[in-house]
């Protein structure tokens, strides 16, 4: 694939330019180029560049989020083409994520979902106010590596424990790692409900998820 085409792909991610990212991905499909190469040598380079700038304190969170969203739409175009070719991109792991039942707070959960997906996880975001059995059902259907639950209220935070207890009761707890998050979640809470980990922000959540799948 032409060097400048790959550079443009990376740049579209760095700029958080969704339109450019989609147009480039479509060009890959239309001109029968290798979608895997487009991802690994083009788009992913952009994500890494932004990630590294973020790590140095130069890039801000919105740049990271926009890069993640541009990456997501590019992959969205390329995924069907990959399937057609019988190829598949490497994923770090599969994550089912949602805000627990009775709680409508979205932003932290969505931020974590975007960051995980930009970092190479396959993410299934069930949204907000999600009943425990739906979280568990989806996690089992997808054979997910990680179930991630968010809660902003101390009164809804207890749902995190209920889901874990349900998994334990059904003898399924060993099959999946549990990540929890939300403003009231503390280390002590995580220990008391036997979750596998928590993070106070989205960046930490990615590091945690990487750790959890590496251990699995």
């Amino acid at each position, binding site marked *: 694939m032409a060097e400048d085409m790959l550079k443009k792909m990376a740049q579209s991610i760095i700029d958080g330019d969704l339109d450019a990212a989609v147009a480039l991905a479509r060009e890959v499909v239309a001109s029968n180029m290798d979608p895997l190469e487009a991802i690994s040598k083009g788009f992913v380079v952009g994500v890494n560049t932004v990630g590294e700038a*973020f790590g140095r304190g130069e890039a801000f*969170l*919105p740049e990271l989020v926009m890069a993640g969203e541009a990456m997501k739409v590019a992959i969205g175009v390329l995924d069907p083409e990959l399937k057609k070719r019988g190829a598949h991109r490497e994923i770090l792991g599969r994550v089912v994520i949602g805000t627990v039942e009775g709680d*409508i707070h979205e932003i932290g959960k969505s*931020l974590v979902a975007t960051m995980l997906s930009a970092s190479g996880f396959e993410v299934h975001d069930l949204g907000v106010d999600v009943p425990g059995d739906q979280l568990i059902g989806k996690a089992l259907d997808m054979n997910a590596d990680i179930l991630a639950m968010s809660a902003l209220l*101390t009164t809804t935070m207890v749902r995190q424990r209920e889901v874990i207890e349900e998994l334990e009761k059904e003898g399924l707890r060993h099959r999946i790692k549990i990540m929890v998050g939300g*403003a*009231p979640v*503390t280390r002590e809470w995580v220990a008391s409900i036997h979750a596998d980990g928590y993070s106070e922000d989205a960046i930490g959540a990615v590091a945690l998820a990487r750790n959890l799948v590496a251990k699995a």
Partner: protein
Amino acid sequence: MTRAIESISDPRLQLQILSGQDICKIHDATLQIIEKVGVKFPSRRALEIWAQAGADVDFDRMTVKARPDLIESALKHCPAAYSLAARDPSQDLPLDGNHVYLGTDGCGVEVIDIASGERRISRLQDVRDIARIADATPQIAFHWVPVSAQDVPAPVRGLHELQAIWENSTKHVQTESIYNEREAQVAIDMAAMIAGGREALRKRPVLSLMQCTASPLGHDGGSVEAALLAAEAGIPTGFMTMAACLTTGPATLAGNLAVGNAEVIAGTALLQIAFPGAPVFYAAAQTASDPRTGAYTGGGPEDFLFGGATNALADFYNIPLSMGSFATGAKEPNWQAGIENSLSTFMASISMADMLLGAGFLHGSRIWSFAEMMMDCEIFSIIRKTLQGIEVSDETLALEAIAAVGPSGNFLSQPHTRRHMRDLFLSEFMDRRPYAEWEAKKDDARDWALAKARRILAEHQPARLDPKLSAEFSALIHSAEVPA
């Protein structure tokens, strides 16, 4: 013995953050947002009230768009002034635009244990202890539920918390930890039992209710339904926006004010459409997210400006304001806590926010510190004293004393000095000792503040709630927990 509440009133200092034209622009933007973008009300009851009033309601998306005249005519019913009642009537709080009252902050999840100094998950006993200390502290005028009673069942937690405060203090209680109709109903019943019936409660609301919006441009269904129930009972009710620049609000301050204003104003209009004349207040604790990480900051220049600007908006709508100040993002009582809590509270106070929330927290309203609570009260006292300004009169010009002392004397033995020395601010926690004394002990404000809190907790006996009432509360809460 509980001392008279110290509030800020008749300030001599003034500050204009927004011009009249700025405020009109924000108001126009707000109306445009409500009309064109819409606000989400995920409550069947709320949506039906809006539909009946003629708003454009999308029941599937649970979103309301309302014309400016509908909003503006509803807001005309808001009472401009009313009082928050206390169990002890001498502690009633007139919200009349000329008082700034400090409350405890609320909804924390951890506590620095008053005895051991260890950080741990908050419990019901903490709610009791904090209420008792607040009852004895003249700077604290009213309570929020300070921390979450995580050792009692979640479905009735908000009720246990209310009982705990009423049993330990005679001051007004504003709950911010009840988010559904079912719990709100019992809370109103409890308040009515204290006031002496539903009609008495309407006249003397010993309880008020604060609900957070879900920024941007959303409400929580349970919260809205609880608010409607409270407004119907004549209990002062407010919606608080916590829109944060960059994440739940635009990056710009004016845009963030408009988004938050649309949430609060739409919620307030709903209450007025349903129950015209219901006592309502504006509540806000906007902030800016940290640009690098998106983290909640709990302080910074943006917070200070919001603290001053929001009262200009509340004044424009002629309703009282409950303003988030204090609530430092600092992890312990330190330099950052001092800066953030002083400046945020100064800006909210100089613009005469009616209620300030509040004293006692670290780490962005998550960790309760008894030392921080006491030091926050001193910050409030410093600002209160500052806002009293400089009185210039024959008496304060002190010409007689100046003539009596003449050049090269001193004023220590003047009768004028004796008359006015107690006007000067007396610090409880500032270190004004000789250096050698500090060097020998190396203690500071944090130690003295904690010692004060411990002393109050050991000694202060609040006026008891009638034990019969306590027993009835327990029974009510029990029956709410176990459905018949």
